[in-house]
Structure formats: structure tokens, C-alpha cells
């Protein structure tokens, strides 16, 4: 019998719940969900035990990136109360043995790869920062579209944002409404779509740039507040970060397609 949403309150985790957790794991280089990128090949649920199979676009995808994705997948699934054991299996990777053993035995990257110098945290931090810059571009585009200019945007602080329900009433939950953005000492307000701002805030918090109400909302790629005169250049750099990610996405997509074609051909032989 297939598992359905009806199991949600039962003792076993549902496929949908597992998928939802995995959807929060991103390819750190592309800043896109591993579910959306179709890296997740299989989810097996047996009681409270969950097995996830992952295949990356090529066998020689950076082991550091492979490590981050498999560790994140493990940790996301483990947050479900109904899950007791998570097992991640990375397939078709030149370092799958080290990674599978390391991730499932909860070793550190340095333990799993004694040859590598140091841990993956520095690489992760750098990629997070790039993702933040790219998301800032999308958020800023939404604000420009709403009619704000560079000077207003560079002056925004976290306290100037207020989430609204679709009907315009204040809201603190996960609604699909919009944000009210207060500008020029709260002398006027504009409404902007919620998704790009929310996505930006998520990364800005992760990278410890924005947490207090008084914090400046947007920053240069180096993490400094933006001089209004440099707004255009910083915005260009944000655009560049999005192009870089989607270009690499094009390479990964291509490699995955080529690999799938090879597998199909060998299956036909």
C-alpha cells in the first residue's frame, strides 16, 4: 500500500514530509533545491527508518559539494520527529565510499578525507555568501520594480519590512502575501512580492548579516553597507552572481543529460 498524507500524524514519516525536508537542501554552488535539480533518485521508508538515494550530475562533482549536500540531506530528514534512522546513499560518485561512510557514521569531512586540507566550512561560507548576493539581486529587483530607487534601497533596515497577508493585514506566519516596505523615515510605504524578499532574508540570516531590527538590510558582496553612489555597481555584481550560478547550472544540467543518455544507450545494448 502506498503511503499518503493520511499517515502524517501516524508513527511513520510520509514520503511528502521527507521530500519537503529534502527540498530545503540546496546545491551550494547553484543555490537551487536538490529535489528541483532531480538529484534525489529514491526515498525508501521502512517504519521509522528512511533511506535516501542521491546521484549528482557527474561522478567527479566536487567531493566537498557532494559532502555538503549529503550531510544537509541527512540533517534535514533527521529533523522529522517520526524519523529514527536516516541513511543517505550517494551513487555514481568517485568518492561515494568515503562520503557514504562518513555521512552515515557522522564523521567530519576531515575524518572522511584525511588527504584534504581542513574542513568544508570555509567553502560553504563562501558559497553561502555568493548565494546571498544573488538573492539580494532578486530582492532588489523587486524593490526597484515597486518604484524604490537606489538611495531608498540602500537605506533600508530590517525594521522597515512588515509581512502582510494577502488581504493586506499584518501577519507573522508563512503566508504567500507581500511585504510592506516603509521608506524615508516611514513617510511612505510600498508593497512588494514576498518570495524574493523572504528568500533573501533567509540567506542574510544564515550569513549573520541581518538579524537585529536596526541592521542595514542590503550589503556589498564584501558585507559592507552600500554607499548609495555605488548602488548600481553593487546591483551589477548581484546580477553577475546570478549569471555565474545559472551558467554553472547549465554545465551541470548538460553533464547530467549526457550521463543519462549514456546510461540509456548502454541499457539498450
Amino acid at each position, binding site marked *: 500500500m502506498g503511503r499518503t498524507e493520511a499517515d502524517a500524524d501516524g508513527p511513520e514519516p510520509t514520503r511528502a514530509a521527507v521530500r519537503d525536508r529534502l527540498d530545503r537542501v540546496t546545491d551550494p554552488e547553484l543555490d537551487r533545491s536538490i529535489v528541483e535539480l532531480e538529484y534525489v533518485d529514491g526515498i525508501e521508508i521502512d517504519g521509522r527508518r528512511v533511506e535516501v538515494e542521491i546521484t549528482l550530475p557527474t561522478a567527479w562533482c566536487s567531493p566537498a559539494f557532494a559532502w555538503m549536500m549529503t550531510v544537509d540531506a541527512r540533517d534535514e530528514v533527521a529533523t522529522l520527529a517520526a524519523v529514527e534512522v536516516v541513511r543517505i546513499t550517494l551513487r555514481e560518485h568517485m568518492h561515494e565510499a568515503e562520503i557514504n561512510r562518513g555521512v552515515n557514521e557522522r564523521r567530519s569531512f576531515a575524518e572522511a578525507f584525511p588527504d*584534504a586540507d581542513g574542513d568544508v566550512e570555509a567553502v560553504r561560507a563562501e558559497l553561502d555568501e555568493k548565494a546571498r548576493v544573488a538573492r539580494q539581486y532578486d530582492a532588489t529587483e523587486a524593490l526597484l520594480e515597486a518604484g524604490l530607487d537606489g538611495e531608498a534601497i540602500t537605506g533600508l533596515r530590517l525594521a522597515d519590512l512588515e509581512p502582510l497577508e494577502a488581504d493586506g493585514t499584518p501577519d507573522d506566519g508563512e503566508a504567500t502575501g507581500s511585504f510592506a516596505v516603509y521608506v524615508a523615515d516611514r513617510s511612505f510605504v510600498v508593497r512588494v512580492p514576498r518570495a524574493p524578499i523572504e528568500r533573501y532574508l533567509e540567506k542574510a540570516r544564515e550569513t549573520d548579516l541581518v538579524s537585529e531590527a536596526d541592521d542595514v538590510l542590503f550589503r556589498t558582496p564584501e558585507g559592507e553597507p552600500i554607499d548609495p553612489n555605488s548602488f548600481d555597481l553593487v546591483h551589477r555584481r548581484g546580477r553577475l552572481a546570478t549569471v555565474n550560478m*545559472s*551558467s554553472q547550472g547549465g554545465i551541470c544540467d548538460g*553533464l547530467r543529460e549526457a550521463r543519462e543518455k549514456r546510461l540509456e544507450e548502454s541499457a539498450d545494448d
Partner: protein
Amino acid sequence: MYQHNGEEIFVIDAHVHLWDATEENIQHDGGEEFIRCFYDYHTTFTPEERQWGMDEYRYYGPDRMLEDMFGNAAVDMGIFQPTYLSDFYEEGFNTTEQNAELATEYPERFVLNGSFDPRDADPGIEYLEELHEKYDIPGVKLYTAEWRGDSKGWRLDDEEAFRFLERCEELGIENIHTHKGPTIRPLNRDAFDVKDVDDAASSFSGLNFIVEHVGLPRLDDFCWIAGQEPNVYGGLAVAAPFAQNRPGKFSEIMSELLWWLGEDRVLFGSDYALWNPDWLVEEVMEAELTEEHRTEYGVEWDLETKRKVMGENAAKLYDIDIEAKRRQFQEDEISQRFGLEDHYAGGEPAAADD
């Protein structure tokens, strides 16, 4: 020369190899992995009917290379960029000496670059001097992620690397090509990180730093550095074949490059035999920027820009006189071999050639 809407464009392929990845030459698993990884890139960005088999991809030899490059006159000249990988391949993968086989036979058609590895210390300096004396190399190709014993790579801003760059400057070896491409190995060491180019380029303003593969997947870091360092250039290898199966992405990448670097600092390269100029040149020449990108970036991929990117920019770096070359190619051995004499005869209508 490429015929584009009745205009002739002189094409210098600034990134070609003559490699040997035959099984007999491989002495380390890394060698096999390396050529397989190349082959993945080849098949991913090559039209299906133009894909090679693995065996011919391992070794294609000088005759095939001449045919691919010059047979249909898609390319007029090529610049060899060596890749040693001496730990992986017994005789090296694509060394200056291997490339010299063709380059010394057809010096009018090829530029021969050398290479150095700062981890070789004094003997490395001596080898660089030897390459200078023997081949008068005008440039070097550097592979910062190459394995050497326990070392998994080096940086262009290492003290030892600076010693080699100083020697290059003294010897007049002005063009420093650095491979800055996708991370394949080794593990988490980010050996293709592009940031080391920044310090090297500002410390050696007399040298030109050509970042191959425009830093992908670090296009952002690369463009930012190149925007500030006037002696940093971008080599299009890897980005070029996007024109074929990811035209929208090609348009976007090219727009970024033209916006940050301008049309004088981008160089075409096929990365042969990763991709073959006999189809790639046409794909890039006929590619168009989308209306949206042209408006957003205010840049054009027009005839003048194509002339620069496809040939003139490399000609400037390598002191190549395009008009003199054109006259020379009316009767050189390659033109005779492929029946291209008329093709290079000035003033002949484009319809006169094949």
C-alpha cells in the same frame, strides 16, 4: 578566414592542444579519470553528429589536428597551451615538446607556449629558460590544480610563483594563461580559485594574464578582478560551446564579459580537442545576444566585436600582423595542402572559396 555576411574574419584559436591520453601513456588512475572527465565535457557540449569516439579522443595525432583546424579554413592560426600532468601521464599529457611537433613544422600557423610549475624550484627556472632558448616561447599556460607528489596544487600569488613570473618578465615571456575552470579534484582544495590572479596581475603590470574558461564557475570573481586589473583577459574556452546548446546562457555570459571587460579583452579559444573549431567557430560567429540582454547590458556582439574577440585581441597580445599573415597564407604549406590559396588571395569575392 571565416566568411560572415560577406566580410572576412581572421580567426586565431587561442587555446589548442595536441594531447596523448592513450592507455600506454597513463601511469596513474588520475590520468584515466582526467581524460574521461574531458570526454564528458566533449559530449555534453558537442552536437551529437560531431561527437568523437573515446579511442580517437584519447589520441588524434597531428594530421587530424591540422585537418580539423585548417581543413575548412574555420581557423587561421592556433595557440598551443600545454598541460603537463606529469604525475598522471608517463610522457606528459600535452607538453610543450609534444605541441612542438606541429608548431615547429608550421611556425607560421602556430604559436607555441610553454609552462612552468613553481614547485619545481630551481630546476623549474632552468627548464623555463630552456624553453625560452629552444622555442622562444611568448607565453606560458599554467595549471594551478596539477598534482605533484603530495601537493594538490599551488597559487599564482605564492612567493615561489612570483619568482617564476619575475623570470618571465625578464625573458619577455609576456602572456600568462591560467586555467581557472571547474573544480574536478582534488577534494575541497579550491585549486582553481581565481582570486590569486588579482595580486599577481597588479604586481606584474608588464605581463598579460589570460584567465582561461573565464573563471567558470567563478565568473563573478573573475569579472570583478578583471574589471579592476587592465592586464587581465578572459579566454572563452568552455563558455564558447554554450552557443551551440545553451544559446540564452551564451548570450548572458558574453554580455557580462563585454560589460565588465569590454571587447578588447576577451579571446576566443576552442580548447581543441575538447571542442572542435570546425563547427564551434561557426556557432560562436552566428550566435546572437538576445534583445533583452542587449538592452540590459548595452553591449553588442557585432562584426567589429567579433573581429576583435575571434582574432585581433590575440593578435595584439602575440604581435601577429594579420595582413602579413593573410599574404603569407596565400602560398604556405597548409593552404596548399587544403587548397586554400584562393581563399587567402586578397580581394577575391567570398563566393570563390568553398
